[in-house]
């Protein structure tokens, strides 16, 4: 159970990070339509990279370097593929899903640390 929670946390942070990085790019921001107030904003890039760095810190802290990095890259692949699917076929959902993950990531991490 504990490992499920940590897996979920890693995935959510990875998705939030990759989603932010994707939306920070001008070429993808154009795919969003009239929702693009925040997309393409360079701050998103920093947010994305920080979430990924944070995710590495969490996963290495929890699982150790070896299994931690393996898990990080695996989760990141899975999250990135979904980001690509969404920006291609449901670009707006990517905005909502990324927002949700950016918000949920720290909360889940908090839960995980407290529990």
């Amino acid at each position, binding site marked *: 159970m504990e490992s499920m929670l940590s897996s979920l946390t890693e995935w959510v942070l990875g998705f939030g990070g990759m989603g932010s990085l994707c939306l920070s790019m001008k070429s993808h921001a154009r795919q969003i339509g009239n929702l693009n107030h925040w997309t393409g904003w360079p701050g998103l890039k920093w947010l994305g990279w920080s979430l990924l760095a944070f995710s590495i810190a969490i996963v290495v802290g929890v699982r150790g370097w070896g299994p931690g990095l*393996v898990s990080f890259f695996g989760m990141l692949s*899975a999250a990135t593929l979904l980001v690509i699917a969404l920006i*291609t076929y449901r670009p707006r959902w990517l905005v909502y899903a990324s927002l949700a993950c950016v918000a949920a990531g720290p909360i889940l991490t908090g839960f995980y640390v407290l529990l």
Partner: protein
Amino acid sequence: MTLTSVGKGISDFLRAGGPPKADGPPAGGFRQAMSWLHTWVGLTLGWVLFFIFLTGTVGYFDTEIDRWMQPELPQAQIGLDSTDTAEVLLDRLRVEAPGADRWFLTLPAGRHQPYPGIFWQGASIKAGASATSGELPVNGNTGEPFVARDTGGGQWLYQMHWRLHYLSRTQADIIVGFATMFMLVALITGIIVHKKIFRDFFTFRPGKGQRSWLDAHNVLSVVALPFHLMITYSGLIFMGFSYMPLIVAAHYGVDDEARQQFISEVFDPPGLVAPTGESAPLVPLDDLIAVAEERWGEHRIRSIDIRHPGDSNARIIFYENIERRVSSGGERLMFDGVSGKLLHRVPPATSAAKGARDLFVGLHEGLFAPPVLRWLFFFSGLLGSGMIATGLVLWAVKRRQRMEKTHSLPHLGLRLVEKLNVGTVVGLPIGIAAYFWANRLLPVASVGRADWEVNLMFLAWLMMLVHAACRPNHRAWIEQLAIAGFAFGSLPLLNLLTTDRHLWHSLAVNDWVFVGFDLTVLTVGLMSGWAAWRVWQKRPLIDAGGISIKQGKSAQQLPGEQL
């Protein structure tokens, strides 16, 4: 087909790709040269690589497949008391293998070893042994050997990815070695050739023919690039002793004995001794188990290896379970088999070089991975298989598009690649499905059953290659995807009809291995069916003998668009 037309076909084939005039001379710069290398290194052994990747990927669930393929066996016996189980196994060895040089006890320590088991070498038939060497899973509760259908199970499916099943060890090593080397070159040149690796990181443009295939190929490669590099490089490390034999030969010599000495120095624990021939009773295992569990924790003994049982020079080696670290191999404890004295504590890696090797081997095998991580390994392997498949399809799509522009007929090379693509990218999975079908349908008592399961797998694959050769290319994709959809999608039904461990039953008793297998093949079946339907929707308007004639935009849609 006459010899001259074959000759012409081959020359066309080479002209269409070789350092080709049509593609612009490779002298155009470093990147073009790398692009040429990427194309040809990827294509030449691409289908072998697809086979290696896919069967290896399936192999991440080898034990789970083993269990599905022997439905007679009960649920896993993980967590039985170590002392009792060892006693039960030792009794069984005394019956099956008296006078053996080596007794090996496997304890049900976790996912890789769901049942207790024994293995022995050099037993004496005269003293009543059932065979000089053998291997048996044993019921930890009753002490009786399990009786289950004869099958290669997930193990054979997994071992195929480097043993290539029908070939000798040497032949397989050479082919797999070249394929892996080609893969590494393809990955590195691919990174060099990919101009906009960051800018196009999230880019997939569907419905644009060749462009879409290139995007898909890039996405599948880049998204799991760390995995692809790791799995390919570690694959080479795995076989290092075979691929670089001169290094060993320089230090130890060239004959088999010298090689054996090297292997035993690297892998055997120190302090193994020859038997004296004087008999002495084997020390009871209880105390030794207590020492090992004290050190490693309860249920963390993976196996107990007894060398020369009953001899005054007997040695007993305990192996630690491996689930806590990425590197392959755990700690070993060596005891005197008569006095029970702890002689050596052998660390997992005896040198930095061995440690590095073990790390790569451990990463490649993923034995340490708990369920979620195991699924990620499987998923990354699928991405790798998809990367190879899209690369192969891209090769064909690019040339067909160019050919349609110039209104020329497809040359033999292009048609060959197109047919091999369908027959392997979809045909091989159909072969794997046939392997599972054979497991349920071949009579349980038939002779050579395990071999026939595999033969049927390769026969089914061969039939798909023949089918691809006979049908127009686009039809072949649709039909084979539909066959794959049926073959995988109906496996849970087949399981329901031929065993009493159907999906509802598995769900009711929390048998997650069976639930996982049934649901996974069902998902694969549904996705294949869906892909068949999508390709059918996008079929070219005129379809004659494998030549699709351009009709508006539809000719841009290429076979297997949605794969």
